[in-house]
């Protein structure tokens, strides 16, 4: 340690070392090494005015360390919460996509016959999606008949019934027929009770009956011109 030329050597050296300690502590604080900083400042309390500065600095540092660790904790917690939320959102999106795909499985059960089995709750968004997919499939496959099978639906209210009526009307606008199959006794009673008008929509007992009806009619349709010629 270089000695200063002027002034009483002992005091200067003493003050100089304390000053250097302070500077060193500040340097530690600047690079976020608070432990080393506080260790350096420990045991420097002597009752003069420089000690007051040191004491003040130590207090300030202690508070800073506390605040900083609190902040760090909060940050870590926030990040954790954020990660959790993001994971949850991702799961929800994935599940929604899966549900959307599951909600409209359209099967071509026979040449020109599409079958749409409906399971679960039908709200307006889902019914719009189902109708859209069904109509697009009808055009793509040039299907003459669409069978909407609602065996998997337990209860139906006016709104749901309305969705199915709209779906049938849209299908008919394209020039295809729409058959509703698999209405269970409960739904049949509810529909009668609430007075839903299903005229114009063909309802058949089950998918088998619907398919048989299609085959019977189209067999007849193909025969009719020949019959007339005879």
């Amino acid at each position, binding site marked *: 340690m270089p000695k200063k030329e002027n002034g009483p050597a002992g005091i200067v050296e003493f003050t100089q070392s304390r000053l250097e300690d302070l500077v060193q502590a500040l340097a530690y604080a600047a690079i976020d090494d608070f432990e080393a900083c506080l260790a350096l400042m420990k045991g420097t309390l002597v009752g003069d005015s420089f000690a007051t500065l040191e004491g003040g600095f130590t207090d300030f540092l202690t508070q800073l360390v506390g605040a900083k660790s609190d902040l760090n904790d909060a940050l870590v917690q926030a990040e954790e919460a954020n990660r959790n939320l993001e994971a949850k959102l991702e799961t929800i999106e994935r599940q929604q996509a899966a549900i959307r795909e599951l909600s409209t499985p359209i099967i071509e059960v026979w040449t020109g016959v599409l079958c749409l089995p409906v399971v679960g709750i039908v709200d307006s968004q889902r019914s*719009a999606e189902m*109708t*859209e997919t069904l*109509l*697009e499939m*009808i*055009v793509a496959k*040039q*299907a*003459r008949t669409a069978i909407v099978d609602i065996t998997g639906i337990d209860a139906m209210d006016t709104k749901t019934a309305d969705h199915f009526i*709209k779906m049938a*009307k*849209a*299908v*008919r*606008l*394209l*020039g*295809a027929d729409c058959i509703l199959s698999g209405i269970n006794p409960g739904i049949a009673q509810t529909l009668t009770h609430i007075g839903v008008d299903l005229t114009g929509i063909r309802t058949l007992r089950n998918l088998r009956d619907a398919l048989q009806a299609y085959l019977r009619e189209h067999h007849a*349709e193909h025969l*009719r*011109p020949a019959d007339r010629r005879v």
Partner: protein
Amino acid sequence: MKRSTAVSMGSGGSDGSVGRSRAADQNLAIIQIRNCLLVSIQTELHDRLALDLQESLMERVRIADAIGVILDVSAVEVIDSYITRILNDIGKSVRFMGAECYIVGIRPAVAMTLIEMGVELDSVHTALNLDLALERLELLQ
């Protein structure tokens, strides 16, 4: 009624007149196939065009003694309530003259919009494509 006799498109030696809309250069060809009339609408169907079509179509049904009228709307992206009314009117008038009217190739999006709007195309028949419409009209003979 402004009409012009233009390119002959019908088979079977009919006069092949084409309804001309007053809107610039847009006209819809009415093609005769056997005893059916076919109109393929390859442009956006606006009000004037639809009204002119209605007029010239009625005349052609009488001249050609057609049993069926087929309107192909597969290229039409917008059908509003007014056009729907005109189409229904065409269907009714055609039926009064003893023929049937088929609308073919309605797009899924158009169908959904019509249903959402709550308008009904109940005075015309619909078919998926021209082939099926012709098949069904042939059954009527």
